[in-house]
């Protein structure tokens, strides 16, 4: 199987940053989300306790995942739900297509599901003659532009209103040059209402699947998942196997964390609990593995499966805000994407764990307390062990380690480097190879190191060799 090209996050990010106005807008928009989240968090007592409970519930669930999956299947089946299992993305696509084609479905509406993005469901269905309309406004925008979503919750955050206006003018007949968000939203909703009315089936994701009742929960602000599943009689819900939680009661913890972490609002407008199909209709749940059972086996990365796709880590990440989702080259970007994607293909995504200044903010905002920045550090070790580091980095570290192991060598090299920096002309020091020197001044280089200053001095601090 041909391997995909290596994603070069640094190069992609540099390109994104080239548009100064856009990167500033992108950064401000996402920081706004983070700031709203902070307001909600500071006003809710016991927020940290909630995070702790959520983390423990997920850990428990993962430790007994097979049992809970079976329990879910049993209970869901009793309610009249058809439960399907897919080993990987292509099996998932085949199953979904199979359900639709057996029922002669040609028109489908779909609400936001990162799982279906991961499996590239849309192109598969379209190749097989099925029209798929993404009904989340952000998703519809990028669908019309033939682009992938750039953020797991706000798919069109990388676009300004003028660009969206132009897209709607081209595809939906809105006025040329119109860019008012209210007007554009209205145009899109009218267009999508027709799609809801004409749809023969609705595909949704799953925010939470409940083992002890066999129900599934879908959360939206727009109501698109609900329109898409209350008008057509066929509902296909696609979920990663990690979306399970043990009990209906456990939802209280997650429902209090999810929307606050995403946008700061206390709950999404709609949190729909589906226990069985609509009368006279069908509800299919497709359980997808696609590498999750493998991640489950890793002590280091297992906790990344706790993710509830809130996007708090994306919004807080200073690197994501300034590089945009496309720089990551993966379905899910940001800190969580940077630990999930290398699990899929460490070679292709080897730069993602390095697209990080290790600030640790992501781990602090994660509602389920995934140790995100620690996992990225572990990935760096993995990437080094698998010999995927660039040769220059490997050699530099070997050399540095050797020097630093021997005090006399460290002192000598230090002296030499300082001497040459103080002696060589500026044009030689600030050469093309000096990456630091491109945008930053080097620090002023002292003639003596600290240890030089105190060598032999008897009254400041005592020398211990």
């Amino acid at each position, binding site marked *: 199987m041909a391997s995909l090209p290596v994603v070069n996050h640094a190069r992609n990010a540099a390109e994104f940053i080239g548009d100064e106005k856009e990167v500033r807008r992108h950064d401000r*928009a996402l920081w*706004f989300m983070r700031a709203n989240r902070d307001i909600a968090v500071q006003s809710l*007592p*016991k927020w940290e306790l909630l995070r*702790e409970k959520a983390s*423990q*519930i997920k850990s*428990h669930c*993962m*430790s007994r*995942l*097979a049992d809970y*999956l079976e329990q879910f299947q049993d209970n869901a089946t009793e*309610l*009249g739900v058809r439960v399907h*299992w*897919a*080993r990987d993305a292509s*099996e998932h696509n085949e199953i979904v297509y199979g359900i639709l084609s057996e029922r002669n479905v040609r028109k489908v509406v779909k609400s936001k599901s990162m799982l279906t993005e991961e499996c590239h469901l849309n192109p598969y269905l379209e190749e097989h003659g099925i029209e798929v309309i993404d*009904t989340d*406004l*952000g998703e519809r*925008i990028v669908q019309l532009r033939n682009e992938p979503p750039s953020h797991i919750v*706000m798919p069109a955050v990388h676009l*300004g*209103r003028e660009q969206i206006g132009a897209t709607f003018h081209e595809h939906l007949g809105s006025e040329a040059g119109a860019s008012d*968000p209210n007007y*554009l*939203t*209205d145009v899109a*909703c009218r267009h*999508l*209402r027709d799609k*809801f009315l004409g749809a023969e089936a609705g595909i949704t994701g799953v925010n939470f699947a409940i083992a002890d009742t*066999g129900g599934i929960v879908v959360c939206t*602000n*727009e109501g698109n998942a*609900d329109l898409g599943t*209350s*008008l057509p009689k066929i509902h296909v819900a696609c979920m990663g*196997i990690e979306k399970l939680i043990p009990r209906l*009661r456990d939802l*209280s*913890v997650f*429902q*209090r964390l999810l929307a606050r972490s995403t*946008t700061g*609002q*206390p*709950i999404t*407008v*709609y*949190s729909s*609990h*589906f*226990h*069985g199909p609509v009368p006279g209709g069908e509800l299919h749940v497709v*359980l997808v*593995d696609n590498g999750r*059972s493998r991640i489950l086996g890793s002590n280091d990365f297992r906790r990344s499966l706790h993710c509830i796709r809130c996007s708090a880590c994306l919004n807080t990440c200073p690197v994501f805000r300034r590089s945009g989702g496309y720089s990551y080259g993966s379905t899910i970007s940001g800190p969580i994407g940077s630990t999930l994607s290398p699990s899929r293909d460490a070679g292709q995504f080897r730069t993602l764990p390095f697209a990080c200044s290790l600030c640790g903010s992501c781990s602090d905002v994660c509602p389920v307390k995934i140790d995100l920045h620690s996992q990225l550090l572990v990935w760096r070790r993995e990437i080094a062990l698998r010999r995927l580091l660039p040769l220059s980095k490997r050699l530099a570290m070997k050399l540095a380690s050797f020097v630093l192991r021997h005090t006399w060598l460290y002192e000598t090299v230090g002296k030499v480097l300082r001497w040459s920096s103080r002696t060589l002309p500026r044009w030689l020091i600030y050469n093309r190879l000096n990456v630091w020197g491109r945008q930053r001044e080097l620090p002023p280089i002292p003639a003596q190191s600290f240890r030089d200053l105190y060598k032999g001095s008897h009254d400041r601090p005592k020398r211990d060799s």
Partner: protein
Amino acid sequence: MTAQNEILDAIRRHHLQAVDLPTLDGGWITYDDPHKQFAKALEAVKGRCFRANDLADVNGQIEKLPEYADSQQICSVIPGVGRSNVDLNAIDDPHDLDNVDLAVVPGQLAVAENGAVWVTDAGLKHRAILFVSRQLVLVVPAGELVNNMHEAYERIADAAQSSFLPVSERRPGFGVFISGPSKTGDIEQIMVIGAHGPRSLTVFLVDSLK
């Protein structure tokens, strides 16, 4: 081997150490005046909350809502509330509900912390009525107001044992927390009220359901 068995095997092969399920106790937030908090939370998400003594009072107040005056197609499933001219039970195809301007539906409980109302499809022939109408009015017993989501799910889980999902006879059902009118911020994060679902939400907390 079936996909199911292969996946379950792949999971079980790890022999993960058991981790305890935590209790859900936490001394979670309660309010001195839950009704006030509910109204405040609902208003913060651009919904509105009114108190009423009984259904006749609700009916009287509904008549005064500006969106009610503008509504032609009104579907109310609560007898005596709203001049209903769309009979939900007489409709076979939920697509025919597309022209409903205003719907009046009962809610089972209300949550103070976030202004959400829990609505089930019990007695509701087409759940689509909750999402397809332009304006939505929910009527909730004032006594069914809880402080937070933990209390809410306790009630729902209990109800699930008895009527929503009786243990003895599993019956499919639908329930949704609705908190405010539909909205989207997908265009430059500017909040636009009114997306696919209703563009207004009015909640009446009624003291007596007579």
